[in-house]
């Protein structure tokens, strides 16, 4: 008789559970793979490619088909003509071929030497097209009654064109020029400086203001819930609405804030808040603080309300003053959530694009790295350079995430 032993390894039940788990995860994983992992790999690929916005369409031969000669009745002469060109002004297309159905009731008189007839199909072998090349194929012939009977329209059948072109996104031509351009440009360090300023002060500001707001609402009174909802407005409203409100509020010509400042005697003339260095950078940072303090406030408040009140009662017995209670009891309890929030907010502020883009468009010294991606790729039409900036962002984020997970393992909570 053998002694009963607990089963070793993974039994069939465990295997079935794992299979089910992967099955449930599969759709999500596929979606994430397609839209996150693939684009990330693509960014690295594009960053070493000399690709501009106009290169995104692969070079291809384009044809325009016409029946010339205005045949009016059976027996008239006509000419079936294709005009072809290379869609790209520079790239070479090799082995261009054209195939099309011969129109009903059109009798070919003389065939172009490059073309052959295979049954009902005209097939032409046109060789290579230089960049910007144009070609014409003219096939004279005679129309018969069938042409009119069937009311033939040559456009009804599209000519099929093929050709091999070197597409810049898929070929193996690489360059370091995007990165060279990026690091050599005088702007680069300004961009890094603006990013750091925006990220550091935006994050700390939102945390401090959020902490203050949480302290305000960490008491029982009627309408506390309403107040909390109200203070969340900046975060919940669409960024586009609040950003434009700010732009209009601080407008140098007809903004209320400028009018108010002049009226109160703080300033003699209107201030261009979003158009001057370094004021614009400070303003976008203030906007960031304004928009995201609700988030920190919500988290800090939730943590505060879960702190045990016994501790405060004990402190009261010991005669601790309100500031001492905050400094020596609340703050240490909040340190965990504050540091997690700091890291998360730091990364998200670093990633922020819409706010600055809408407020200043990256002008007046507010161009951060993320805005620079857009600026390079779309404003300057250099997709490759934009991708290079994106790679720099990714590398920075990799460092941040590493830090984040080191801290995360120490701080429970989130």
């Amino acid at each position, binding site marked *: 008789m053998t002694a009963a032993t607990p089963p070793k390894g993974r039994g069939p039940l465990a295997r079935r*559970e*794992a299979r*089910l*788990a*992967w099955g*449930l*995860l599969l*759709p*999500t*994983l596929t*979606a994430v793979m397609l*839209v*996150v992992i693939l*684009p*990330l790999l*693509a960014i690295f690929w594009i960053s070493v490619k000399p690709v501009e916005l106009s290169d995104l369409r692969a070079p291809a031969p384009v044809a325009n088909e016409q029946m010339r000669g205005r045949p009016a009745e059976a027996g008239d002469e006509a000419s079936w003509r294709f005009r072809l060109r290379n869609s790209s002004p520079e790239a070479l297309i090799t082995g261009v071929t054209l195939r099309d159905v011969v129109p009903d009731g059109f009798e070919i008189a003389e065939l172009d030497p490059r073309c052959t007839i295979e049954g009902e199909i005209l097939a032409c072998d046109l060789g290579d097209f230089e960049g910007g090349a144009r070609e014409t194929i003219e096939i004279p012939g005679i129309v018969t009654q069938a042409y009119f009977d069937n009311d033939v329209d040559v456009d009804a059948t599209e000519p099929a064109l093929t050709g091999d072109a070197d597409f810049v996104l898929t070929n193996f031509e690489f360059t370091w020029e995007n990165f060279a351009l990026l690091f050599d440009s005088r702007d680069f360090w300004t961009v890094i400086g603006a990013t750091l300023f925006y990220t550091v002060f935006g994050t700390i500001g939102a945390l401090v203001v959020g902490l*203050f*707001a949480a*302290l305000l609402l960490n008491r029982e009174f009627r309408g506390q819930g309403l107040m*909390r*909802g109200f*203070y*969340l*407005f*900046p975060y*919940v409203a*669409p960024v*586009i*609405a*609040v950003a*434009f*409100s700010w732009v*209009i*509020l601080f407008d140098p010509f007809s*903004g*209320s804030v400028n009018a108010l400042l002049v*009226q*109160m005697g703080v300033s003699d003339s209107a201030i261009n808040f979003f158009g001057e260095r370094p004021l614009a950078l400070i303003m976008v940072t203030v906007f960031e603080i304004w928009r995201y303090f609700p*988030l920190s406030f*919500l*988290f800090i408040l*939730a943590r505060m309300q879960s702190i045990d009140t016994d501790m405060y009662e004990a402190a009261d017995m010991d005669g601790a003053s*309100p*500031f001492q209670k905050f400094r020596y009891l609340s703050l240490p309890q909040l340190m965990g959530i504050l540091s997690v929030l700091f890291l*998360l907010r730091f990364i*998200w502020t670093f*990633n922020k*694009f*819409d706010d600055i*883009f*809408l407020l200043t468009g990256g002008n007046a010294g507010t161009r951060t790295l993320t805005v620079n*991606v857009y600026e390079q790729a779309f404003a300057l039409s250099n997709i490759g350079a*934009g991708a290079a900036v994106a790679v720099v962002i*990714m590398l920075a*984020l990799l460092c*941040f*995430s590493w830090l*984040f*997970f080191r801290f*995360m393992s120490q701080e429970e909570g989130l």
Partner: protein
Amino acid sequence: MAGLRQGRVIGPQIAVLWAYVIALSVSVLLSFTTGAAFRPGVIGALLIGVAVGLAAVQGLRGWALAGLAVALAIALGFTPVGVIRFGDGTGAGLKLLAGGLFGLSLGLPLSWMMAGCPAGALTRHEFEEAEIRFLTGFGYIFFTAIVAIPFYVMVMTSLKSQGELIANPLDFTIDLSQGWGLFRSYVELFRDFNFGSYLWTSFYVSVLTVLITLAFSIPGAYAIARLKFRGQKPMSRSILLIYMVPMIVLALPIYIAFSMLGLRNSILGIVMIYPVTTIPVSLYMLQGYFRGLPAEIEEAGLMDGLSRLKVIWKITLPLSLPALASVSLYVFMIAWNEFLLAFMLLDDPSRFTLTRGVAMLNSSEVPRQHLMAGAVIATVPVMALFLGLEKFMTRGLTAGSVKG
């Protein structure tokens, strides 16, 4: 230091600061509502603050203190050292209103701040309590002002005309005699700028995003939270990692891919891409919630012969309806407010979402009241939803650790 910690020093000190804060707030408030010119006066604030502060520590509290402050403020209002100074030609009615408003907002909160403060030496407790109450009062005014002003300006600007706005940027009074004419910017947006269709597009895109997100993330979150498999730990961590990829970095290759596939300018493309930005958030929120559900209930279901999928459908989902509501709201909000992808991928005005439509209004040819009316149209639905379901929303936000 201890010598300064006297009621008769601290009281006036707090009162002066509070008087200036109130004077500034009342000036801004009245400027914004009446369009007339108001400014706070430093000397007036100093005079009134010292007087009212001393009165407060001598034991004058409540309405008596407020009455004193009102009387002083109105009296000073007719001298050159008023605590609120008026532009030329301000009527006596407005001066009385300003004085009264100032006096009440000075006296009543001050008597609360100074509660229990004697005129003589203060203990550390009394001193800090008074300071904290002052800071609390200041905090309420400060936060209410910074949150309310941009929204107030947004709504009021949308009801005015370009000419009026440039003539006096502070004048937000609206002419109620126009009746429905007040809303002409909104009417024009819906009639000439196709906003009705943008509203509808945004709505169904957001709803579809919610549905697709839930369809993908419920099974995924359940698997991560409940089932044991190799790679469970790294998987639950990498969800957070996806959070950290900036949208603009993804938007560039997505733009290229969509250009080549012909998916740009199509709602299909938008509906394909939005859920992927929200799946990680929702996955994270839901798996946290599923973990918190007692496993025993599900095990009982398994014992009774339900399959895992049946357990999810019949036990887990009904139990997590509140969490599903939070997640849906949150995802709806993200999709409704999304701007970057809509801006990059949509060029055809007949297929815009609402945020893209508002971005289109930001040009020098479109008057700004139209831009603000567009902003209001984009804000109101999400605000209404948020206020109506605030509990779910805040719970969802805190549970999900949130996306910026």
